[in-house]
């Protein structure tokens, strides 16, 4: 039987041993990339905030905390005033919230709006059967791949003074409204982004409720409402809370939408950090960014603690049966619910479709209201005649595509390796997961600023001056922003794979890396491709870090170009937005075709 030599570690050949260690090598490379591209740059920014004249001081924090400009009435609390006096002023009508207070306020409003808009969608998707249900369910992924600056253009085209909303109102003989640069516009735009997220996680939870549990409750004497309250709601509402917590964190750190729709008069923390960076007040910017980070992480941690306590994710053996949307002989109650749903669908159609439709419409509408291609022609002409300081369309498109390809090539292996590492069982796995997911929580401005000052301006390493070009820094920043999405699409697939498949391959002689290549990756391939499409789309749409890094004329991307156009020429901005829409639309098709539907986020 022993005709095959047993290979002990010592006698294995070098390539064998390298292959055995391949996963370790990749893990080390991924960690190194994260340190260079994320932890080190972010650390330099954070250190900046506490370093004063060579010493360490928390003065910058104290100043911000006590400044009513940032914390409104609450700042007086930090300054030592009595809480009762502060509380009295906070409830008075002319209270000041400060920038941080306003940011939290708009995030809270946005969260409420997103949940309100998302829950009926979840109800519709989880409990009803109708043509196109699957398509709409998979369309809820769209916000993740839509560049926020493009959404902002869509909202300007909808709610602006000459936008479609006013055109419709005018046609109906109603007075025009100007929603642009108002809180309402920001909240609606945030709902556009986050309501599908709420709908998505809630639908998934609702679908995993076991019909048997509801039937048991009914057989034990609970009526339909009672069964919903006692059995369905407890399983669905943690998902709603997940959606709400994520929405709050995302909207608390919002940047491009507020920059485009609110300007500096409705600035959130992130926008103001950007302004401070532009004004070269790095220390204050860093301190403010840290305060923002602490608040975001605080909300996330509080939520995660809650989730850990109440994690009862049961895999529904048999999901609740879906009801037909149009019953053959509807009862009064069914009529009421159908009318309610119809009203909801109308509102949702306006919120979700109007911005995109308006943007496309605006891109082919001239100043006189007639159809025209003049905005696209403007882009072509600008390409030929632009002055050195002006944005040319073609390099923006070329850069966007190039950066996206580069970022995807970097993010994909990083994401796969982290997905493998976080789906294996070992002590400290949660820590690895948290460290690898940190880029999701840290503001893009901070990452961009750190890369700018840490790598682009150069850093001294053992006597060598290491510098990276802006383009390289942008690719790296995009990869860091995009790879968590690769992890989030690939990891659930790996998690769901039967462990004995890998073990069989290993017992048959495959190394860990070889088993990954031969067995795991082929089986989760759709998720890998979907993850790649995610990374590509995130890179294409990334604005925050790019706007900080795109200093030279050589490194601007489509979103940056749109931002430059948006204030002055809405037409070309919408035309550029349409180009961006086409490119991200293509990556969405890839995600959709390759089964991103049921995976991850």
């Amino acid at each position, binding site marked *: *039987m*022993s*005709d*095959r030599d*047993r*290979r*002990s*570690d010592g006698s*294995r050949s070098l390539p064998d041993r390298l292959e*055995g260690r391949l996963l370790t090598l990749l893990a080390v490379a991924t960690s190194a990339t994260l340190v260079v591209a994320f932890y080190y740059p972010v650390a330099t920014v954070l250190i900046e905030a506490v370093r004063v004249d060579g010493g360490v001081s928390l003065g910058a924090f104290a100043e911000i905390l006590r400044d009513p400009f940032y914390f409104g009435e609450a700042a007086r609390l930090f300054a030592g005033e009595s809480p009762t006096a502060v509380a009295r002023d906070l409830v008075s009508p002319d209270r000041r919230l400060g920038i941080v207070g306003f940011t939290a306020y708009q995030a809270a409003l946005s969260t409420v709006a997103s949940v309100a808009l998302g829950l009926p969608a979840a109800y519709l998707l989880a409990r009803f059967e109708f043509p196109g249900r699957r398509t709409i369910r998979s369309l809820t992924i769209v916000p993740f791949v839509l560049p926020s600056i493009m959404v902002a253009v869509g909202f300007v085209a909808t709610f602006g003074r000459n936008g479609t909303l006013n055109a419709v109102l005018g046609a109906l003989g109603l007075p025009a409204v100007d929603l642009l640069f108002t809180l309402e516009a920001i909240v609606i735009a945030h709902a556009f982004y986050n309501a599908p997220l709420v709908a998505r996680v809630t639908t998934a939870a609702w679908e995993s409720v076991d019909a048997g549990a509801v039937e048991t409750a009914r057989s034990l004497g609970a009526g339909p409402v009672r069964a919903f309250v006692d059995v369905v709601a407890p399983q669905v509402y943690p998902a709603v809370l997940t959606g709400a917590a994520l929405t709050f964190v995302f909207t608390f750190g919002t940047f491009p939408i507020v920059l485009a729709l609110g300007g500096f008069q409705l600035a959130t923390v992130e926008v103001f950090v950007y302004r401070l960076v532009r004004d070269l007040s790095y220390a204050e910017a860093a301190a403010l960014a840290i305060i923002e980070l602490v608040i975001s992480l605080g909300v996330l941690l509080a939520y995660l603690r809650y989730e850990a306590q109440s994690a009862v994710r049961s895999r529904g053996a048999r999901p609740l049966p879906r009801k037909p949307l149009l019953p053959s002989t509807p009862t009064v109650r069914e009529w009421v619910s159908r009318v309610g749903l119809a009203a909801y669908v109308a509102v949702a159609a306006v919120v979700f479709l109007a911005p995109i439709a308006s943007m496309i419409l605006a891109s082919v509408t001239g100043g006189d209201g007639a159809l025209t291609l003049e905005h696209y022609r403007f882009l072509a002409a600008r390409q030929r005649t632009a002055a050195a300081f002006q944005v040319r369309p073609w390099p923006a498109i070329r850069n966007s595509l190039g950066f996206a390809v580069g970022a995807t090539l970097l993010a994909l292996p990083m994401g796969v390796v982290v997905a493998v590492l976080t789906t294996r069982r070992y002590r400290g796995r949660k820590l690895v997961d948290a460290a690898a997911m940190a880029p999701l929580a840290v503001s893009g401005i901070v990452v961009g600023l750190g890369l700018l000052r840490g790598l682009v301006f150069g850093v001294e390493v053992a006597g060598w001056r290491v510098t990276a070009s802006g383009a390289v820094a942008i690719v790296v920043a995009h990869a860091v922003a995009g790879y968590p999405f690769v992890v989030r699409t690939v990891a659930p697939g790996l998690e769901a794979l*039967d462990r*004995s*498949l890998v*073990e*069989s*391959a*290993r*017992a*048959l*002689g*495959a*190394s*860990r890396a*070889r088993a990954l290549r*031969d*067995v795991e990756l*082929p*089986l989760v391939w759709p998720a890998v491709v979907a993850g790649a499409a995610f990374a590509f789309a995130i890179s294409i749409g990334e604005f925050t870090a790019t706007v900080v890094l795109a200093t030279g004329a050589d490194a601007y991307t489509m979103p940056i170009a749109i931002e430059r156009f948006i204030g002055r020429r809405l037409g070309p901005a919408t035309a550029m937005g349409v180009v961006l829409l086409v490119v991200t639309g293509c990556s969405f098709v890839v995600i959709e075709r390759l089964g991103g539907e049921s995976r991850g986020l």
Partner: protein
Amino acid sequence: MGSEESHAPVAVELDGVTKRYGDTAAVDDVSLRVREGEFFTLVGPSGCGKTTTLRLIAGFEAPTEGAIRFGGDSVAGVPPEARDVGVVFQNYALFPHMTVGENVGYGLNFADPPGGVTRGERVAELLELVDLPDAADRDPESLSGGQKQRVAMARAIAPGPDVLLLDEPMSALDARLRERLRVQVKAIQSELGITTVYVTHDQEEALAISDRVAVMSGGTPEQVAPPRTVYREPATRFVAEFVGDNNVFTGRVVGASGTADAEGERGGDGAVDGETGALDDGARDGNETAIEVDGERFRVGLGDRDARTSPGPGDRITVCVRPEHLRIGGGRNRITATVANAEFLGETTRMTLDWGGREIVIRARDPLSGEVAVGFDPADAHVIGVESE
């Protein structure tokens, strides 16, 4: 007891192996030796540590303490792919994205086919061996459970492993198919002479298929012995009750084996007189003793226990009697009990009797009811353990 009949070299040895997860030991100080060509089975209820033991041998888990040796060499730190083991899982774990032929040939990416044949020949040879000669191009998902199990077996054997590890490979199949397949598995194992470690919770399967069986409980083997020994001479109460139906009694020794001296020690005990006749029997074959269980007296055989290991008067003793040895209206030790429950199983009827609050299991051809007299012969009682006073 547990004598190792084979004297072939040791293929796999576990030496004081412990595996802890946090504070609980899944495998607790296990020492086992599996000889070359042996069919060795780990059997026990779920959670007894049998699968963990198999995973330790395969290298999927590392022991917390102790050493595992293959052919005398420690395999500590050797990854599964370098151990030359073949593993078959309960769910077969066929690679769904490969054909049956690709599955069987997968291990040949990392080792040359044994016997100097080509890869294709080896795959064909193995599919032939498991009786699926035309399945090479089929999709694993199109196979039945039994066919998948055979493909998994062929895949594990293809690279010519030193040790075959089977983790409940038949649990997912229906009873009839399981019986047919285990004959086939045993035949293949004998034909190849491959050292095999088999994990199952099914004691009947373990008895049917193995050269030796380790009955495990609480992470430790309670007995390691050939199937017949495990069945007839269970070493512990757990083994007696886990392997097959059994009636276990605990009582006190009231007479010693054979001699009048031993009886004399009992002194003025009024029971002595009544025992005299039986004592003579004991004296005749010299290998019996009298015990008292709940006031009832039995004579039980002591097997080949010598004077040193034989129980003395007053010792606590545990004995077992198989249902098939309890005969209605027969046997030298008799009791009268009431039928509490009868299950007609076809060839026999399994009945539970109530004997003064104790449960006794017997087998008979036809169901009975009411009071029955049952008995057993001393030689059919097996002494599991003795505790001296």
